[in-house]
């Protein structure tokens, strides 16, 4: 399994946020204390297709893979270049991948990488494809209102590219998946497609009770309710996945959850009694990059020698939808 990633050049620091919001109670150090995040990368002029191509090129170059070897592209994004055509088709052309390739976008966020792995495993096992390029590419910054502290503080832009081949089939374990549309309204860009088309009316900005400003064109996140959902669902998700794979919690070498923010991660870690050294917390430099957090965290953990070949990693994504999923990967 080969993973590479890409982050746009522009960086938004806590100091930048402090200057933008100029509120005495919202200082750079307070932002860090509350979120565990110091900086996030922001895609300015880059589109999702640009970010996808950059991550894929990093992968092809780092691991000496020729584009002609790829026979399927899966692209996870919630900020596609267009509703149509499919951004993955645009990426195929830009990467010079053969036209005999299959390709499609799928619309998921925090759980996206898990669903990508599940789909890829299915395609490989059914002999639909042999060399799958799984890309996550997200630019939530483009959905976020400049004066909305709740979301601007948390989210960062990034993309990742993973190559999955037949050799990876037995390195990807059994999956536990879940969906609850009751949570749809808690993490949403209301005027982002057909339900509420964008107009002058949807662009009208309003201030919420915390002083955050957003319009229907912007990302809205109900932090407390999403947190409660995570506490209700994720511990069960982890235990169920471990059991389904015929293992115990002690058999897992490392846990890589979706890197939402430091507080939810430490709360989950403590609730599941996972030792600190086995639990990935890697939000400080990149923030919450949505579907890219898990692959990036795995790659960084490997580069930093925190994990090694042969290690069993439990990966779990949860959030927007609500959607969740987990599986166990053997690093190979």
């Amino acid at each position, binding site marked *: 399994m080969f993973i590479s990633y890409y982050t746009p050049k522009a960086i938004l620091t806590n100091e930048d946020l402090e200057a933008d919001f100029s509120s005495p109670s919202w200082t750079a150090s307070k932002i860090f204390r509350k979120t565990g995040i110091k900086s996030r990368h922001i895609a300015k002029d880059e589109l999702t297709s640009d970010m996808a191509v950059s991550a894929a090129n990093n992968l092809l170059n780092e691991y000496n893979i020729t584009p002609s070897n790829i026979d399927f592209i899966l692209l996870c994004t919630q900020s596609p270049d267009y509703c149509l055509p499919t951004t993955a088709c645009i990426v195929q052309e830009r990467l010079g991948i053969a036209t005999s390739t299959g390709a499609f976008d799928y619309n998921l966020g925090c759980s996206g990488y898990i669903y990508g792995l599940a789909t890829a495993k299915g395609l490989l096992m059914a002999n639909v494809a042999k060399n799958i390029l799984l890309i996550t590419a997200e630019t939530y910054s483009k959905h976020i209102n400049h004066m909305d502290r*709740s979301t601007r503080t948390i989210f960062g832009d990034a993309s990742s590219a993973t190559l999955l081949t037949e050799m990876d089939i037995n390195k990807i374990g059994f999956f536990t998946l879940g969906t609850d549309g009751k949570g749809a309204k808690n993490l949403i860009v209301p005027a982002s497609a057909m339900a509420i088309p964008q107009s002058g009316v949807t662009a009208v900005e309003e201030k919420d009770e915390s002083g955050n400003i957003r319009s229907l064109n912007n990302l809205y996140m109900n932090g407390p309710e999403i947190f*409660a959902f995570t*506490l*209700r669902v994720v511990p069960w998700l982890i235990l169920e996945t471990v059991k389904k794979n015929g293992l115990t919690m002690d058999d897992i070498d490392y846990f890589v959850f979706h890197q939402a923010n430091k507080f*939810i991660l430490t*709360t989950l870690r403590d609730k599941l009694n996972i030792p600190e050294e086995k639990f990935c917390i890697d939000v400080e430099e990149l923030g919450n990059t949505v579907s890219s957090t898990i692959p990036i965290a795995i790659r960084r953990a490997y580069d930093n020698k925190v994990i090694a070949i042969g290690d069993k990693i439990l990966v779990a994504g949860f959030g927007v939808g609500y959607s969740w999923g987990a599986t166990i990967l053997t690093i190979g």
Partner: protein
Amino acid sequence: MKSEDKLTLIAKAIQIDTADINPQTELKSIEEWDSLAKISTIAMLDKEFNKILNADQIKQLKTIQDILDYMQ
């Protein structure tokens, strides 16, 4: 658990002094009562009292007493 200890748990979650709150205090009058304070309160109630609030319960929190009512 004594009431003072419960108030201390709440104050710690909101990150204010225990002396600054009493059961009748309205949450909207507390400057620090933002999303992060709500999240910390949800976490505290789960950890100490095994209760995870749902969306409606979170919305209906208006006073410190409303939080204390879950602390049994």
